[in-house]
């Protein structure tokens, strides 16, 4: 089964949040965990990007592509890029993969490729 990253929909006013927060930024009325999870779309367009050369110690790669993507529902997220020549506004498609490895821990996040 394909892995997902979730947005959080306020049960009171329907506002979508990503990342998770405890209180809805629109209605500010929530009791604990009054959110439903909704998978984030995987298709979107590239808003900005960078190629990083000095990485934290855990990354055993020469460079790392990072970008902000506007998803097809209008929400944005940050992800890693597997794109050799990124361009602003290009169509991308995401997949949930391991984005950070630490001893005994794999962290999953969105990796975008050209659509």
């Amino acid at each position: 089964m394909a892995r997902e990253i979730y947005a959080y929909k306020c049960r009171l006013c329907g506002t979508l949040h990503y990342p998770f927060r405890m209180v809805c930024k629109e209605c500010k009325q929530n009791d604990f965990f009054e959110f439903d999870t909704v998978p984030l779309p995987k298709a979107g367009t590239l808003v900005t990007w960078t190629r990083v050369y000095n990485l934290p110690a855990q990354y055993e790669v020469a460079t790392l592509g990072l970008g902000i993507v506007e998803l097809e529902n209008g929400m944005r997220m940050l992800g890693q890029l597997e794109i050799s020549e990124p361009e602003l506004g290009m169509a991308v498609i995401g997949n949930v993969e391991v984005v950070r490895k630490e001893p005994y821990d794999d962290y999953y996040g969105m990796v975008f490729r050209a659509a």
Partner: protein
Amino acid sequence: MRDVYVAGIGITTFTRLEYPLSEIASYASMMALKDAGVTEVDQVYVANMGSPRVNHQTALASAVVDSLSLMPAGAAAIENGPASGASAIKAGFQAVASGMEDVVLVAGVERMREVNNLEATDFVATLTHPLAEYIYGVTLPAHAAMFTRMYMDRYGVTERHLAMVGVKNQNAALNNVWAHLQQEITLEGILDSPEAMTNNPYVAEPLRFFDACPVSDGGAALVLVSEEKARELGRPMIRITGVGQATDTHAVFEREDPTDLLAVRKAAKDAFAMAGLSPSDVDVAELHDAFTILEIVESEEVGFFPKGEGHIALEKGETALGGSIPINVGGGLKGRGHPVGATGVAQAWEIVTQLRGDGEARQVEGARIGFTCNFGGFGNNVVCLTFVRED
């Protein structure tokens, strides 16, 4: 609310310092206490971002107050990311303004070179959103780079404008003996010559090595006092007239327009409103140029220039010494260095130096009104201050 004055200032050299963290804070504090002419204080605030993680030391304020023999003064450390320094000044301001304390020592300190560069970069990156940013390997240079690319696309900022900020501020540091970088650079050397890509490689495209501040150790300190105490001490009457602080979303991508720094805009607006000043009244400013792009954008968001025109003002020399609004004449974070917890206090140190007329080769003639912007996170926690010389 009572008026609050800066009666004393102190600073250490910003560089790699082989001294214990608390001694760096104490050295700057001793200078500030001697400058003010006080040996006893009511309260100590120590601004620091990384001591538990980087220096394996907690409860830093207790160490500093002991080192300075200021017992039994109240003492607390304030951690607020790279805005820790001005946040501690705000706390000190509130303590004096409320009437609760008469003399408050505010020290800012960081010793980041105790760990290697990879660990220092990772330490600063821990201020990003843990699940939506940090796990991807985002660093502060990466945030600044992605921000810069959007700004270039929308407003026509180029790598040349960024390099111009770098040259201006790093060379300004040559007039500041406390500054970390003491090496003159030129546009030819870092941008135009065939060697430029070797001298000045990308750290996070489109940002290059000379677009980023150095990783520094250092401390700075202020003594804040009530008006009555300030008159008794007889130092130049430098008053903190405006304090503004604002926050924005933790994750940068979530902002309605990620090229707006709304927390900078609001913190500056509130500081100016409290002071009864407008941006055009400012004679000398310290903006938080951890990356060259930030000086350009902050100069717009705080109100010195319209949005999208900061780089044009830079081209005209308006932000250089002798321009209409000199910015970072002591080198800024780029030239002075950026020991994160110390920076907000060091910005105030520079402004007070200027308003006292002690700026020597970097003095802004006749400066009476100063402004600081201390930028935390990637724009999610910002403190702005205004300073006025009254006598």
